[in-house]
């Protein structure tokens, strides 16, 4: 399972719609947040504990955040989460921050696919 957190302003479609369109892989679960600035490190970590193989966050472009600094905060928290993954001998690349313009679905889809690819890549050698 891959967990995605998206800001309400970047993803304007229901995540379910993306999946039913076949745009995102089946095992990608996307949660829409009012703003990615609301996302805290524990939520990211707990996603992994609850079975996510990778986590991605899609927020507004850094300079165009609807709430000014929301996506900047999110990116810092993603950074913190990555450090913790490293401490736990996990690949920090399993959590990543992405940016999308308002109402752009494509970067979300891209992020989902990228993370899915990353996960399957890591699964192979093991």
């Amino acid at each position, binding site marked *: 399972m891959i967990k995605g957190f998206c800001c309400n302003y970047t993803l304007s479609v229901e995540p379910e719609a993306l999946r039913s369109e076949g745009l995102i892989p089946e095992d990608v679960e996307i949660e829409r947040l009012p703003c990615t600035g609301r996302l805290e490190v524990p939520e990211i970590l707990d996603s992994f504990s609850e079975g996510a193989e990778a986590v991605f966050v899609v927020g507004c*472009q850094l300079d*165009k955040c609807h709430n000014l600094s929301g996506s900047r905060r999110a990116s810092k928290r993603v950074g913190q989460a990555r450090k913790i993954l490293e401490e736990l001998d996990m690949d920090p690349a399993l959590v990543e921050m992405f940016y999308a*313009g308002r109402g*752009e679905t*494509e970067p979300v889809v891209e992020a989902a696919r990228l993370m899915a690819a990353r996960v399957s890549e890591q699964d192979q050698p093991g």
Partner: protein
Amino acid sequence: MKAGSNLENVLRSGAFAVTGELGPPKSGDLGLVRKKARILKGHVDAVNITDCQTAIVRMSSLTAGLAALAEGVEPVMQMTCRDRNRIGMQADILGAAALGIKNLLCLTGDHQKFGNHPQSKGVFDMDSIQLLQMVRGMRDDRAFQCGEEIKGNEPRLFLGCAANPFADPFEFRPVRLAKKVSAGADFVQTQIIYNVEKFARFMEMVRDLGVHEKCYILAGVTPPKSLGMARYMKKFVPGLDVTDDVLSRLSDASDQREEGINICVDIIKQVQDIPGVAGVHVMAIEWEEAVPEIVKRAGLSNRPDPKGIEPVLSSSQSIEKAVEDARKEIRIELEEELERAKTEAQASRELVIKEKEKIASEISDLKKQVEEARTMASRKEAEVQKLTAEIEMAKKELEAKQAAAPSAPVPEPQPPAAPPVPGPAGPLTGREQRVLESLNLGLEALKTVLGLDDTQFEALRRFLEAEFMLQFGQAPVPVTPSAPAPPAPGPAEPQPAGPVPEAAPAPPEAEALVEEPVKPEKPARNKEVVNLVAKGNLALHSGDYNGAIEAFEQALGIDPEDAKAKAGLAEAKAALEKAISAVQPSESEESEGLLPPCPEGVDETWWKEKWIIRYTARGNVAMMNGDYEKAVVEFEKALSLDPENGKAKDGLNRAKNKEGIRIPEAAGAPSVEEEKTPEPAAAPAEEEEEEKEEEAEAAPAEEKPAKPEKAAEEEKKEKPAPEPKAPKVEISAPAGEGVSDLSVTPLAKDEPPLSERAGDIPEDVYMESCSGMIQSVMLGDGENAFSVGGETALPFYNFEGDMPNPPRVAFEVLDSEPEEWPDVLTKYFSDCLSDPAEWARKCVEQYNAKSICLSLVSTDPNGADASPAEAAEVAERVVEAVDVPIILWGCGNAEKDTETLREVTGRIGDKKVCLGPLSDANYRTLGATAMAFQYPVVASTPIDVNLAKQLNILLENLGVHLDHILMDPSIGAVGYGLEYTYSVMERIRLAALTQQDDKLSCPFIVNLGREVWKAKETRLPSDGMLGDQERRGVLMEAITASALLLAGGELMVMRHPKAAALADALVEGML
């Protein structure tokens, strides 16, 4: 005396003291200490024994100091505050003094971080100044640090400290030294001095404080062992100022060690002169051997006899033992040394032998190589000679060919655009004169080049003049029997419309003509006369009687006695008279609208039909030009031949009602050949052409010289069509089939305004103004820059809003020779296809291009895969060659285009070009590049409204303004999805104009040329069903363009000059 040490004695005596330095080993090997001590013994007054220098664990300074003392060398024991607290330090001080150590250098110590135990706890119970205070208290006050009295022997120690004149803050350094002196320092040793000048300044401040009178100052020096060491010290040892002078002295030296010693000696000599310097402290780190030499060269080898060096522990026995040990040690050492020397000598002997062998083999190798090179050189030379001979031969052949066939410099057969020659022969027109002049100039050049003598040259020149006259002045002279029936008019024959300008004679004829005039002339007759007579005869034969008469008269003016000229003149005059009388009736015939006599061998019915069509066409042309009277006359003529002809009737009606042409040929039709060989097979095609014949008027027909028919002479006496109202674009086309004239007659513009035509219908019924506006995008810079877009209404809906900028055509130029273009396209650029810059220039200068779209097709990774640098080079040349706005269109591979276009922009810099295509895959990189240079860009998406909008949004998010974006909606040519293109473009435009969708408000760039010309229909050859290949292609391109202009296209990228001219004419006519 504070301690009575040797050092104290020397300093007190006023002698210049010398101290050395000894680093204890990182082991328990006392022998090493002894060895070093022996090296220094006698050359210095005392030796510093370092205390775990740079925080690296070594034998303690107390132990090593005692060993040195046992060797008869006075130690200066160093003590740092890093490793012991006051308890440990005082304990060691007591012990040291007890065992005969008389000098103590008090230091804070290097931080443990620098040593081999960086994890250790740095004690630093006190600092060096507090240490001095403490030891002085023990010595002078006989008290421990805590104040407790030392009962019994107090430590008698001569106290030293360190000073760094080069550390910061510089001004505080003398103060700090003063503090140390007042804390108890009796002498001071400075940090290593290389910057003597700075040290001198330090000393000046020290003297100002009077410190030099309270303590002895020893200047620290170190011979740099190598350049590397000097550099290391400069870079990594804090507070060590190694001057550039020292570095350069070392780097220039052949023997760095030797130079190091010299540097050290020089510094010693310099510091000796500085007042207040009482001695030097020579620190030859791990290079104790250098010290005796340095001391000697510095003139300090005469050390005072040592006093007060008394090892406490050594009994006489132990001394003997020590001496014995030392002897043994030395013997062993000597033996080892001898053995080593022997081995080394042997080794070096072997090395020399090996080296010799190696060199010998190398030399033989080199010899071999030289030999090979020589052979190769001689082979190359032979090749060169061969090639030179070939070139020579080729040259000769070429010369021979040129001499034999000098038709090369003959001007190309003139395109039909050449003005029709006035009826009867007359003097040369100005233009002809100029052509002749330039011909002569060319010939002169040729003469020089070919090395012709005057006679040969004259012959050649006259031949060419004759040729010229033949082509431009007259109908062709039948020369070879194989040529078809000559059109030469016999005096009795009716002369229908005067001489018809004829196309060039076929090449075989031209060559046949060559031979005659090349024959050498008889020198007796005046060349000019001969020339003129020949000219006259030619004119006469070709029916240009006036020309003939003039030529003969000119000849007679030069030589009135020339018989041939006289005879020719008479003949010409007679012929002229006959001709005039013959012409009369035919003219009256035509003016009455009668059918001219049918030429021999031509089907009568066909001939009649032909004239009906012709008259109808003339009527249409006249009507279009607004000459309704003439139109009526022409239509009546047609009807007199065929009273039932519908077209003529219709035309007549409209002409009478002054309605104009029913079907205004929107995009215009390319002109066609009017004259066709009257073969039955060609007849059906004639029908199609009927409507288009009006244009044929403006384009004199071109005749296939292979089949001249009598019919070909017909017609053409017509005065040229009345001048169009708008200036006509005069563009000449290279000779060829299909499109014979690139000019386009402008559309009639005398339509009354809509409001008038609408009559009483209120405006709001048919008008619907738009709330949106299309962005105006500026292309290019300089005087040829233009904007596209800016409309506030649907395309050409001028009654509803503004269309401030006319849509434009950009000519497509490829960066490499096109491989799949049909001939009907390439022939217009055949002279410049391989040179994109020249190509672009031709488009601008000859085909009136307002913009150039340079397609960087060669960069396609699936094709030639040219490097970005190559493409950039081409782009740069094109940009330099023309001054019109340029669109740089990549190969369509997002990655490669990013590379290529970045490279290009890097080269052309500020020159404004438009970059494209930007797709969702590379808009970030290219968008950023474009923004940096303020270039407009082409946003290219698959044909879809939403995709187009999304890319615009992405670009805008990136920071590209909408007024820097041209939308490329991806288009299909007619027959290849034109309808869908139209529909999508229309929806985009409607959204922008009526639904306030400003993200779609960018102008369109329509890259249609490539779409049209890749359609198979443009490649199929001419045939009965599909008609002429070129016209087909031109029309496909023109129709696609016109449809997409109506859909909102603002910048049309096109290929064929005619199609472009048609599109321009459409725009011109509709605005």
